């Protein structure tokens, strides 16, 4: 559904240089620190910035020809037309989108207690985040591009938003979602596929199942480390007890090194090891 092939965008002290592919029917997570290039990537997909090289295909067409009726886009901490009241914004959206579900959208706004006669810039962070998601879900989009949709929200509000995304995917198996977050637990519970980005480069791509089943964190003493076969070790980090080693073949070590403690992988562990290990 989305093919990004070798795009490059250079800023003064940052370069985005990456490739990725997003399949129909999947939720793909983009995990990275603040400033890793997540937002730049989203902006490139939406043709809000000009890339220097590479190509971006969406639904088989160049991204510059993208019909934005087919996309629901959320950018963290920004809202459409913040000087408008919600009531006015709804009228505008109804006129802008080809297939805006007006009644359903109004119902959803009421259900989430969004005030119709208040300007958007007076909304709380949570209200703005919910509004952004509701807009993205309101017009029969086939693709959701969500950049930090849960940033700054409490656990309950985050869960509400994740549920809305899950419902969106259940309604049509051809839909797909690209979601970024630096809150790895959000992505862990939601995504089928995970990309990890750092300093503008994709440093890891795996399915979520593979990451959770096949990756593991080996905790070894310095003596155990000496005898360890390092073939399947991706990253190593020095710790008080010896070394923490990230492996993508934890079964191999389970079978061949029964004395070693192997912790179940989480995205937090993975994130920390991929960025902090060597």
């Amino acid at each position: 559904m989305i093919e990004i092939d070798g795009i490059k965008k250079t800023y003064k002290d940052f370069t985005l240089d990456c490739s990725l592919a997003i399949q129909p029917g999947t939720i793909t997570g983009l995990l990275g620190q603040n400033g890793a290039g997540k937002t730049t990537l989203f902006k490139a997909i939406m043709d809000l910035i000009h890339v220097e090289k590479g190509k971006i295909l969406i639904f088989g067409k160049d991204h510059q020809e993208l019909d934005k009726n087919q996309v629901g886009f959320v950018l963290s901490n920004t809202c459409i037309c913040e000087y408008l009241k919600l009531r006015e914004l709804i009228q505008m959206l109804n006129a802008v989108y080809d297939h805006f579900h007006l009644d359903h959208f109004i119902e959803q706004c009421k259900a989430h207690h969004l005030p119709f006669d208040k300007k958007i810039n007076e909304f709380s962070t949570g209200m703005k985040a919910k509004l952004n998601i509701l807009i993205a879900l309101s017009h029969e989009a086939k693709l959701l591009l969500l950049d930090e949709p849960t940033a700054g929200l409490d656990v309950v509000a985050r869960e509400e938003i994740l549920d809305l995304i899950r419902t969106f995917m259940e309604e049509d198996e051809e839909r797909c979602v690209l979601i970024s977050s630096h809150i790895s637990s959000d992505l862990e519970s939601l995504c089928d596929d995970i990309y990890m980005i750092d300093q503008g480069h994709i440093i890891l791509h795996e399915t979520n199942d593979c990451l959770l089943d096949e990756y593991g964190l080996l905790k070894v003493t310095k003596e155990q480390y000496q005898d360890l076969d390092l073939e399947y070790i991706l990253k190593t980090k020095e710790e008080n007890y010896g070394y923490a080693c990230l492996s993508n073949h934890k079964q191999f070590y389970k079978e061949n090194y029964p004395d070693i403690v192997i912790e179940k992988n989480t995205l937090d562990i993975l994130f920390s090891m991929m960025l902090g290990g060597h």
Partner: protein
Amino acid sequence: MKGLFIKDYSYIKQSKFLFLFLIIFGLGFSFIYDYHTFVYGYFSVFPSIMLMSTINYDDYNHGFTSLLSLPISKKEYIKQKYCLGLILGLLFLAIAFIISCLSYYRSLHSFQFLNSDLFCGCIMSLMFAYFIIALATPVAIYFGSQKGQLAMMVIFGGIFVMGFIIYFIFNLLGIDLKAWIDTIASSSIPFITLGIVVITAILNFISYQISIKIFNKKEY
């Protein structure tokens, strides 16, 4: 484009008290000083100011990023702004015309003032409004909301200074500019009006093309 008009109408609606104040001030000034044509010049600057304020609203807090993620092309956005400028120009001219008619009628107690000179004057003031729009829109698009207001002040200041310099040079050369303009105007005002309409239309077309280029080049 309908959605963009709804948005801008909602913004402009928020300034309804300012609108009312401007009308009352124009009305008051015309009536108190019996200066019947004052409102044409007075109202001719407001279309551009209102248009620029809608661009500033759009740009507020990364607004263009969100706006351009909707099914709105950059070209469509620019086109709508020039259309809005056209409508605002006509709207303010209509208000100015009503106020000036009331003011004239109050003094003359007849409709003798409704002649070709007045209509040419109306068109000229409208063209002046469109001239400022042609000048200010690419600047507002280029500089955005933060520097845009400063750029506007520089432009308006520049127009004022340029006018003053031209007047000063003509004075130095011993040419009475006002009398010269009056002579030309009285002899062939319909042709001059037509010429100004054509020039303003060309300027707006060029301005529109520049705005599209700037908008396409910018990143959001």
